[in-house]
């Protein structure tokens, strides 16, 4: 069973389009995250949700809108895609929001904006 899954795995689209990435975890965790990995492999957190409530928003452009319909799902919608949005997006989950909680990562979604 996949613990943290993401769809799609690859996403190629044109500038200006709107796209969504979905994430689901079956670990029973209550906290989920979105990270962005750029072309130099640098990983940075974008958002975190705890029990469907947004708790971290790291100065991400408001073209990015996360949505958590329930504790097991965290989706990422991106409006008006730009070339600079090309990256690998990772979803992760953990139990609780404390510093000791191990984060489990999904396989990533490679977004290419042309």
């Amino acid at each position, binding site marked *: 069973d996949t613990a*943290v899954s993401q769809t799609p795995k690859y996403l190629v689209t044109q500038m200006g389009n709107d796209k969504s990435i979905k994430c689901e975890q079956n670990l029973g965790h209550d906290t989920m995250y979105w990270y962005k990995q750029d072309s130099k492999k640098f990983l*940075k957190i974008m958002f975190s949700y*705890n029990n469907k409530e947004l*708790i971290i928003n790291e100065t991400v452009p408001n073209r990015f809108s996360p949505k958590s319909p329930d504790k097991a799902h965290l989706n990422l919608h991106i409006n008006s895609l730009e070339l600079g949005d090309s990256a690998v997006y990772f979803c992760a989950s953990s139990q609780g929001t404390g510093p000791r909680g191990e984060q489990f*990562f999904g396989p990533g979604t490679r977004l290419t904006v042309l």
Partner: protein
Amino acid sequence: AQSVTQLDSQVPVFEEAPVELRCNYSSSVSVYLFWYVQYPNQGLQLLLKYLSGSTLVKGINGFEAEFNKSQTSFHLRKPSVHISDTAEYFCAVTEIIQGAQKLVFGQGTRLTINP
């Protein structure tokens, strides 16, 4: 804000040789440190973590790391590497923002094992 510096962007090593991947973090009162591995085209997998207690931490796949508070380091080591250890390795520290944790990652070290 917390920060992590991985001193080597690439480390080439011969198979069965020992390896050390270096990581330094910014000082803080409480430090929780992690090493993650990313195999090609895959997500991140936790190798090991330091939360408290013994400064020598053992992880999966024969890796270990030593927490050194005085040198603010958390270097990763393996006594004998295999071809399958070829991957990107990330050191990370937990930062707490408004009661919520986020992982702050280093720049990553690409470990390449040569036969």
